[in-house]
């Protein structure tokens, strides 16, 4: 049965997923965030649900489709803001005009959306079920004679009549006269023509920035009233239109707009990383207990951070790691020096499982894994100010609670657990916890400084040992592969000439 309770906040915190979710919510308007947030915290456990989401993600990976969807959600957002602004304007004529404008925008947005989705590049016949239904709905809405078509025609008529209205203002001292336009010459154009012979490129504009909001002062409001008095017919038609079309948004499209944000927010957030060359994939979902295979996975939160801190080189600085757990392997024991990228690796492992359970693309070149029914983490709490004894107590209580809840479908990630006690004790506790984890048959990643835990004979065939290594000659790198790399040995001068692209061949190539 699908379990639809969110993953514990502490686990999301440990995996840096909380920050990630916050950041991707920021791509959405404030009003939408509260509704979206819980969806990113709750994994799916039914592969069919995941398949449904994958279908939508695949549809959105067609840029023709995703551009169309984005354009539509953006347009709807603008229309809503516009309408609520109109409600607040004091002059009733203004409110009507704003509503009329919103109807035009809406009509254009729906038509553009339908056209873009049914264009040949969008391959409308190849769309998944969800977007396929939407296309069918749009097609029927756009048929002539529907309420939508009538709405547009009526709006066009009112607007065309208002567009005919031109007027002239004469201001002398504090007297203002409003007249019908009589075709006066444009003074500015005359001057520009006279000095055109001195024209040169790149002259700055002297146009003052005028407030573009819709608020009217009393003088403008009186002018608008007089313009309406001089042109009674189009303004009467406007009032009638506004009264007739109060709610014109199609509820099916409004629902779609809310639904699709879950995907768009994630794709918007990961877009820059994809553009920078970082891989993403839709993972294959294995049966419970099946293999976990990750090719070139990385910590998405770290990648995002580096991309922001170092826009040019951030993506290159990301180190990817691959790992595979083939049944009966269930325990991944990670050892190695500090600053070796162990925690980053652990986060990557956890993030991939959570994101896979959300039905979203995961940060890896390729991945397959079973859906976890829950994620448990056990990271050391640096900020804990309790006594040594109390800290170990606390850690053991937390691990016991996790062990009580975990099932064979859960994923447990332990990071430097029990380091607050002696090596002997840590080894003792670690072995016992590993025994319990093995008994539960959970998938477990265990980061430890106790090397012996990686080679316990009784868990031999279910244990995989990974060792982190430091890249010795580039301490500026923050994350490292969990593989060894041979050092380069080249003559110094030639090497730096090569570094600057100044060997004969490199230089010839540059000057070609």
């Amino acid at each position, binding site marked *: 049965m699908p379990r639809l309770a969110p993953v514990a906040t502490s686990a999301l915190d440990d995996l840096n997923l909380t920050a990630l979710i916050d950041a991707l919510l920021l791509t959405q308007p404030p009003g939408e965030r509260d509704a979206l947030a819980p969806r990113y915290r709750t994994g799916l456990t039914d592969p069919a649900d995941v398949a449904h989401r994958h279908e939508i993600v695949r549809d959105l990976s067609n840029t023709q489709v995703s551009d169309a969807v984005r354009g539509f959600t953006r347009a709807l957002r603008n229309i809503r803001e516009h309408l609520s602004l109109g409600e607040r304007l004091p002059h009733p004529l203004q409110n009507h005009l704003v509503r009329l*404008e919103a109807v035009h925008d809406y009509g254009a947005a729906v038509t553009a959306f339908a056209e873009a989705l049914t264009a040949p590049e969008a391959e409308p016949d190849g769309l998944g079920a969800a977007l396929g239904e939407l296309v069918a709905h749009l097609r029927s809405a756009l048929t002539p004679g529907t309420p939508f078509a009538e709405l547009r025609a009526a709006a066009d008529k009112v607007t065309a009549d208002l567009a005919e209205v031109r007027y002239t*203002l004469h201001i002398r001292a504090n007297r203002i006269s409003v007249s019908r336009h009589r075709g006066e010459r444009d003074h500015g154009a005359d001057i520009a023509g*006279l000095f055109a012979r001195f024209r040169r490129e790149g*002259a700055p504009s002297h146009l003052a920035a005028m407030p573009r909001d819709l608020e009217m002062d*009393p003088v403008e409001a009186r002018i608008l009233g007089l313009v309406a008095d*001089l042109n009674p017919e189009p303004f009467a038609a406007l009032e009638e239109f506004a009264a007739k079309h109060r709610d014109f948004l199609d509820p099916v499209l409004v629902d779609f707009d809310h639904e699709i944000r879950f995907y768009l927010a994630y794709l918007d957030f990961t877009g820059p990383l994809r553009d920078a060359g970082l891989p993403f994939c839709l993972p294959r979902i294995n049966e419970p207990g099946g293999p976990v295979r990750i090719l070139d996975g990385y910590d998405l939160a770290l990648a995002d951070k580096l991309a922001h801190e170092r826009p040019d080189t951030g993506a290159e600085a990301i180190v990817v790691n691959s790992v595979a757990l083939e049944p009966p392997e269930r325990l991944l024991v990670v050892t190695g020096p500090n600053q070796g990228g162990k925690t980053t690796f652990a986060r990557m492992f956890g993030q991939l499982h959570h994101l896979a359970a959300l039905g979203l693309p995961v940060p890896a070149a390729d991945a397959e894994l079973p859906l976890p029914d829950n994620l448990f983490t056990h990271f050391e709490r640096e900020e804990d100010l309790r006594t040594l004894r109390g800290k170990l107590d606390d850690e053991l209580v937390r691990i016991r609670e996790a062990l009580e809840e975990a099932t064979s479908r859960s994923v447990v990630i332990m990071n430097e657990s029990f380091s607050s006690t002696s090596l002997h004790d840590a080894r003792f506790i670690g072995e016992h916890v590993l025994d319990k984890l093995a008994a539960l048959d959970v998938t477990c990643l265990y980061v430890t400084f106790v090397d012996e835990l990686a080679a316990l004979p009784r868990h031999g065939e279910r244990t995989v040992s990974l060792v982190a290594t430091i890249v010795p000659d580039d301490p500026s790198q923050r994350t490292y592969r969990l593989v060894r790399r041979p050092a380069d040995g080249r003559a110094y001068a*030639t090497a730096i000439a090569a570094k*600057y692209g100044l060997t*004969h061949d490199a230089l010839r190539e540059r000057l070609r």
Partner: protein
Amino acid sequence: MDVRLLHSDREFAPDTADRPLAHSGDLTDDLELDTLLAAMDPPDEAAAATARAALLAPLRTPDEIRYRQRVHADALAHESAVRELHTLAADALERERRLSIVLYPTPESVLRRAVNSLDVLTERLRALRRLAARLAAQDGWASEGFTGLFAELDGEVDDDWFREVARHLKELQFRRGILLSARLGDGGRATELALGRPDPDAPDPADRKPARRFPLGPRRPDTLSFTLPENDDRNAKALEELRDRGLNSVADAVATAADHLRDWFAALHRELGFHLCLLNLRKRLADRGLPLCTPEPLQPGTAALAARDLYDPGLALTADASTAITRNDVEAGGAPLILVTGANQGGKSTFLRSVGTAQLLLQCGAFAPAAEFRAEVRTGLFTHYRRREDATMTHGKLEEELARMSGIADVLAPGALLLCNESFAATNEREGSEIAREILTALTASGVRIVFVTHLFALADGFGGDADAVRLRAERRDDGTRTFRIVPGDPLPTSHGEDVYKRVFGTAGAAPHP
């Protein structure tokens, strides 16, 4: 109406088309161009900036160079006329500049300032037109630059034009109020507001009888009016905002027109100033008794360089009058690589500077510091000099040189001239020679021309018998004295540091005993 005293088809544009060469800061330092620029005795900052910019933005074709050479020949033949034109242009700019500054630009204040600008500038334009008519009558104007300028001032801005401008400026006083046309914009706000020109014969719209309001009745009024109460701040502010919105586009148009005319004067002032700078420099060198010539630009692709009595004008301007200025003859044919070796303090650096400076002067349409100078028009000019400071961190220094060379390689194109002074000597001779050799062969094979001053014997010796390399050497007589002349010659394994040591210590050559 473009000023064309520097280019045949456009104005000099230091910010766009005439941007300085990449790495022109290094070029300025290495060739000591500041000395040269100071000797031009620029009449004002605009002239100084233009002279610098033009020197660092070389012309790219022989035709362009000859065009500027012809304008300069006219300036030389009519120096006082050029000074008169320059003074008038400077005066126009100064009068315009002294007009009050708009501190808080609003359309109304921008318009007011622009109308005043146009008043001042069109008056000076009229004066310039009269002056040009008088100067054009002098004999001997031959360049398209000057004759074109005179012709345009005669034909493009005639009396009718000045009258029409005056009428506009009067209307912009708004003695009969402001007439605006408008349409309904977003939310019913007025949009496309434009200033209309009232028919001078029509009755004043404000004087029309106010029509009675029958908005839905059979009679349609043409005009509806209202009067705002006096002494109401909110209304006064609203009215001001309406005026500003209405005047925005005309203020932009008038201010843009004023900008264009002012910038035209500025271009004229700038380009005349450039020619005055060259005239001043010419006089300084001629007073020193040094030869000057109109250099001959050769088509790109020839790699040619030939000179008679070539000297470094920078040295000539700083050395005291009694010092003889060394002059060199060069005949490099079409060889892309010139290697200069030989004695320390033998004149190698001065020679390198004279080649670079003459090339820059050629490509800015000026005279050359030589009795004869012919050279290919280069696509760029770059210098890579060994930096003397920080001699301790050898590896860091080599890396700095390589990084700098890589930066030059980023912008090098076939046909560019690269001047190197003891590059890659920051490491041991074998390694330095190897790096330099790779770079030199790659660059020359890619069409780059190089003059390379070096102590690296292994490097220079390696190019022996290479038809693409001309090898020159600082002259040293058998008794060890230097002539500071650069002559054809193969490299020697020593740079005669011993000579310098002997001169400094006055000993007969034995190493000093500890």
